[in-house]
């Protein structure tokens, strides 16, 4: 199936999300669609799969113009999308999830699961997906769940498969396996759209590349190697980008944070942090790599005083702080950039100014007796907005009106615009545009250069590699490997993230 987008424009009110986009998607080829968050990639694809109606322009399938009144019609026309966030029911089996909504039924609406299983197996065999139709979704690793989403799309006989940021949740090994699947889909004649903001991946998998910026196609390549990563980055961002974080040659100083035999349980009393020992020195960035859900969140909560520790000790500058509260640690100079800015980092309905003092509002600077000194708060917030390059029109804007990058900068400003000694940053740049990533990385490196100890937790291996002086890999609640930042071997870290590293363990 060949699909052509001709002059597609999508406006929301006065805001033009997609402007006059022309794209050719051909059978048996992978189109890589590159762009930052907010560039209009998802809007464009939502137009293609019938979620939005285009304001202008037309979609042609095999030369014939079509219009979709809803996603159902797009699916019937053979367009399928694998979303970034999986839409699976955890307590159902693979087969049940695949047939959901289009169930094969027998007499009296009897659900024919035998047929469903057989159909899933058929798709399995055709594309080498290797998914057990009877497995419960909740028991499957993320990479396999993604394959279930792919089976769902194929089951609805899609000829065009759109992948929205498919590699964000995968380990490096899973990415390799995923690419193999994409190639087998392509070779069987499907048209593929691969949406991403990762430069390396797009060059590896795509047959064509289109770069989207501010809703417009700003670059196009018919061969993946026609443009270098630097070219792509420049096209995507609109200016030259440097990915190298400036490293300070200073050797790290005294041990700052020492963790010994730390155990943390979750609400069900399962061990989520299993006997972890680590140490962060002043002037050093330690990165914790690992696929999400391997205990990193619990580790961070334990280190920041937000969850109870079941065993072991945490020492800060020689003082036992295992049981210190979050606020006590804040006073000791802890800064914490939480992993989920919307849920735990910010109060989206509050103003920028209010969010800037979320953890220091009780400070004498910002309050007098029972009352808040809002004038002081607002001025301090205005300063921080300027110092940390938050793009906002007023400190009274609700944080929810800001872009993700600017929201994250509000957190960074709040946590780092005071004297800190130790920074814990969890997924500090998840979902951000390149410009914001660059900026936040430089701020983190600056903190290190000024003598802070820094602990970065990220599932983006590139981020860990770019920043860390030392890298620890977490798998199933344990630290399974340690690497020196400069000499780290990406493949070895990837293996460790998947729990298959045989080298020296930490």
């Amino acid at each position: 199936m060949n699909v052509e987008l001709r002059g597609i424009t999508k406006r929301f009110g006065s805001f033009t999300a997609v402007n006059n986009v022309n794209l050719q998607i051909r059978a048996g080829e992978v189109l890589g669609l590159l762009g930052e968050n907010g560039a209009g990639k998802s809007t464009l694809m939502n137009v293609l799969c019938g979620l939005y109606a285009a304001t202008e322009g037309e979609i042609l399938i095999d030369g014939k113009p079509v219009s979709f009144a809803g996603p159902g019609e797009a699916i019937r026309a053979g367009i399928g999308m694998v979303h970034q966030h999986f839409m699976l029911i955890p307590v159902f089996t693979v087969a049940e999830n695949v047939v959901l909504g289009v169930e094969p039924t027998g007499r009296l609406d009897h659900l024919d699961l035998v047929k469903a299983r057989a159909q899933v197996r058929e798709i399995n065999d055709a594309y080498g997906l290797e998914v057990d139709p009877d497995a419960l979704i909740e028991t499957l690793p993320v990479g396999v769940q993604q394959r279930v989403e792919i089976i769902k799309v194929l089951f609805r006989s899609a000829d065009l498969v759109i992948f929205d940021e498919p590699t964000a949740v995968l380990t490096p090994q899973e990415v390799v396996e995923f690419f193999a699947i994409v190639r087998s889909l392509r070779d069987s004649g499907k048209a593929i759209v691969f949406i991403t903001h990762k430069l390396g991946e797009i060059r590896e998998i795509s047959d064509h590349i289109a770069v989207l910026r501010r809703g417009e196609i700003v670059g196009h390549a018919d061969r993946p190697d026609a443009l270098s990563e630097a070219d792509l980055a420049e096209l995507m961002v609109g200016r030259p980008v440097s990915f190298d974080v400036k490293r300070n040659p200073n050797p790290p100083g005294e041990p700052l944070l020492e963790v010994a035999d730390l155990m943390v349980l979750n609400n069900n009393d399962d061990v989520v942090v299993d006997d972890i020992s680590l140490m962060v020195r002043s002037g050093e960035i330690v990165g914790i790599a690992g696929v999400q859900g391997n205990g990193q969140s619990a580790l961070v909560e334990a280190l920041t005083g937000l969850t109870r520790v079941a065993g072991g000790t945490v020492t800060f500058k020689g003082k036992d702080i295992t049981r210190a509260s979050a606020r006590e640690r804040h006073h000791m100079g802890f800064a914490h950039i939480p992993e989920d800015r919307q849920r735990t980092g910010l109060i989206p309905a509050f103003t920028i100014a209010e969010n800037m003092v979320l953890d220091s509002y009780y400070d004498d600077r910002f309050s007098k007796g029972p009352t808040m000194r809002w004038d002081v708060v607002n001025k301090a917030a205005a300063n921080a907005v300027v110092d940390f390059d938050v793009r906002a029109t007023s400190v009274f804007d609700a944080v929810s009106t800001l872009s993700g990058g600017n929201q994250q900068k509000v957190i960074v400003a709040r946590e780092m615009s005071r004297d800190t000694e130790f920074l814990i940053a969890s997924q500090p740049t998840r979902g951000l545009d390149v410009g914001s990533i660059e900026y936040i990385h430089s701020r983190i490196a600056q903190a290190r250069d000024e003598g802070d100890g820094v602990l970065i937790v990220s599932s983006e291996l590139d981020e860990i590699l770019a920043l860390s002086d030392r890298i620890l890999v977490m798998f199933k609640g344990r630290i399974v490997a340690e690497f020196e930042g400069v000499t780290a071997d990406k493949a070895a870290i990837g293996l460790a993230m998947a729990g298959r590293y045989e080298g020296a363990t930490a």
Partner: protein
Amino acid sequence: MSETKKPTNGFSEALLRRAAPDRAAWEDLVIVPLFAVVVALLLGAAAMLATDVDLATIGRSYVALVSGSVGSVNAISETLTSAIPLTLAGLGIALGFRAGLFNIGAEGQILIGGMAAVVTGFSFPGLPMIVHVPLVLIVGALAGGLYAAIAGWLRAATGAHEVISTIMLNLISYRLVDYMLRLDFIQREGRSDPISKSVLENAELPRLLTWLDPNLRLHAGVFLMIGAVIFIHWLLFKTRMGFEFRASGENPEAARYAGMRAGLVIVLAMGLAGALAGLAGANQVSGVLGRASPGFSAGIGFDAIAVALLGRSHPWGVLLAGLLFGALEAGGRQMQVDAGVSIDLIGIIQALIIVFIAAPLLVRALFPWGFSKAKTSAKE
């Protein structure tokens, strides 16, 4: 890291300028409640039509509703008198909403606060008014606050949801009041029915308009109401505690991450909400009823939930909503007298207002021309 990286004061004054509320906010705050009231009145008329009331009577009842609520000094006095406990308890509910708590227990808190106030009100003969009235109010507020704090503590310590526990505490309070009203030192001498001794004259909130007409019931509680509105506004928006309340209400996880103590916030917010409801109860026994009898709270605690919702949990909005509900109540009584329409109609109208407030989309659908086009705020 140190703070002196860039010279400060580098920001422009524009950053400190507030944007005017946009049309959506205006619609949400003003137009939706307004339409809700209008639609509720229209549907109330429809309900009357459906029960075979003729048009002339419907007309007369709405005229009576207006004249009975704002048509005379007496009407205004009645409206204000009814609005006082509704606003006080409504403020408490609103405070709970702001802190993320759904306090269904105002009714029970009014009863407990009112009982404590009655006992205080008849137990200290000889106290001067200037001491006795505040004492009655403070004891009422304290009792209501402590009673509500039980639900807060249960939530903070055990996770028991406050909706359930406040409902249960309401039920307990009904029977507790029945029991207390038969205790020797509370029950009025010579009476076999459960009714309390009367509040001493020096413990009564002074009436304000008796110089105009001795029958006007408006009492000094009206100042209490205004004072409470100002106080809660100050508390919510100008103080540290209010900031903690609002943060915990908007996003409890982020508040926890910021080091706020969730349990303390819950107990304090519930306690304060209960204190306001208790104050409403004290206000009723000391300003209007003069004594306590079974069920003297008369559903005010539940109407207050409606008041808080209609007032969008904003102190001034709660005041306006309290006045509206007070007017409906006062006007409803007049309606019953003049047109013979049951006061239950007022209950229907109040309920309809709440339905429309709770379903703003419904109001938007009914009155599409009153609103700007539904925004598809979907960006990437």
